[in-house]
């Protein structure tokens, strides 16, 4: 093979590598579909966030509208604080309710935003006031057992 043919082959090889990188960026990864640097930031406080993790989706009516950017514990109030980054084209009213839900029975946890009716919209850096914590299965079972025990002791009287 002469030199120019080798150059063409190497050029094709590098181009193929770039194509693979673009494929991984667009189709396998989520570089374009959601860039974490774009959008505005909201904050929501919960008593318990369960298994909600950084990069978990934020959904409204089942549609992904943003992602969880950070999760930390407030040192004074001992509340869990989740910072969300919402895509700029979506706006949520002041009385939006943030609920932590699980996709499927054992699936990943995500944050659901139920839009309210207020005419004022949440701006960058504001806090969602109305929140509902994650359902913790152990607590639920404990409560159920406690209620059962209370019921049966009530029957005996």
């Amino acid at each position: 093979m002469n030199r120019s043919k080798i150059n063409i082959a190497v050029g094709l090889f590098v181009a193929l590598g770039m194509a693979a990188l673009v494929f991984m960026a667009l189709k396998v990864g989520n570089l374009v579909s959601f860039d974490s640097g774009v959008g505005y930031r909201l904050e929501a406080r919960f008593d318990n966030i369960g298994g909600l993790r950084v990069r978990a989706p934020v959904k409204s009516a089942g549609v992904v509208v943003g992602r969880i950017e950070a999760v930390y514990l407030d040192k004074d109030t001992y509340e869990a604080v989740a910072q969300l980054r919402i895509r700029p084209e979506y706006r949520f009213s002041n009385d939006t309710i943030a609920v932590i839900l699980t996709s499927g029975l054992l699936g990943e946890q995500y944050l659901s935003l139920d839009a309210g009716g207020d005419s004022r919209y949440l701006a960058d850096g504001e806090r969602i006031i109305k929140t509902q914590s994650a359902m913790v299965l152990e607590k639920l079972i404990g409560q159920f057992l406690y209620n059962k025990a209370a019921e049966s002791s009530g029957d005996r009287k």
Partner: protein
Amino acid sequence: MLDFLEGLGGATLRVLARLGLASRFFVTVLARTPGALRRPGLLIPQVHFAGVRSLAIIVVSGLFVGMVLAVQGYEVLQRFGSADSLGSLVALSLVRELGPVVAALLFAGRAGSAVTAEIGLMRATEQLAAMDMMAVDPVARIVAPRFLAAVVSLPILAAIFSSAGVLGAYLVGVELIGIDSGAFWSQMQASVDFRMDVLNGLFKALVFGVAAGLICVFEGYHAAPTAEGVSGATTRTVVISSLSVLTLDFILTVLMFRGLN
């Protein structure tokens, strides 16, 4: 007892001497590498040999690894009723681990061994000594371009391997088994992060390229100038490259992914 101690000490000293020789050689090669970048006439044929001609084995292996992952992953995932997560399982394992590691192992076996044999034979037939006599630096002319070709080729090969694997998993998972194609891609995109997963995977491949490249040129350059010497050097290249790729992979994985959750 004294014999045993003597043997142990001798073996330790030999290993240390070899390591020292290798380190000094690596520094020499690294110092000559920028020069090799300025001479594409030497570099491009090596990229052609190490990269382009490894394409067939990389693409075919990638496709099959992806297809096997899809079949095995589906078997396990469907027991938990989460066969839809197949996309994210396949993509994460390929992009983070299998792409860089398997590409590096195949590369060491296909291109690394050939480079060792080539340089070793040049040493055995005294071509390297002849170059020295003509005031041509054999490290700059022969060794550095081959090392650089490995560093350039391996990340590209790993990216192609991962992409071929994802396509193979798509073929088996969606076309053959019948998972919903929307769920396959969206689960994949929800779990794979470009910077954390894809770029970290390619960085791994770059490190493996440096390791495999240095080992194959070192073993060739310091091969004993006999038939047995060259064959032993070729074997050592494959064994040592594979082991160091796997060790480095463990270290890099702990550094990169342990702090994720």
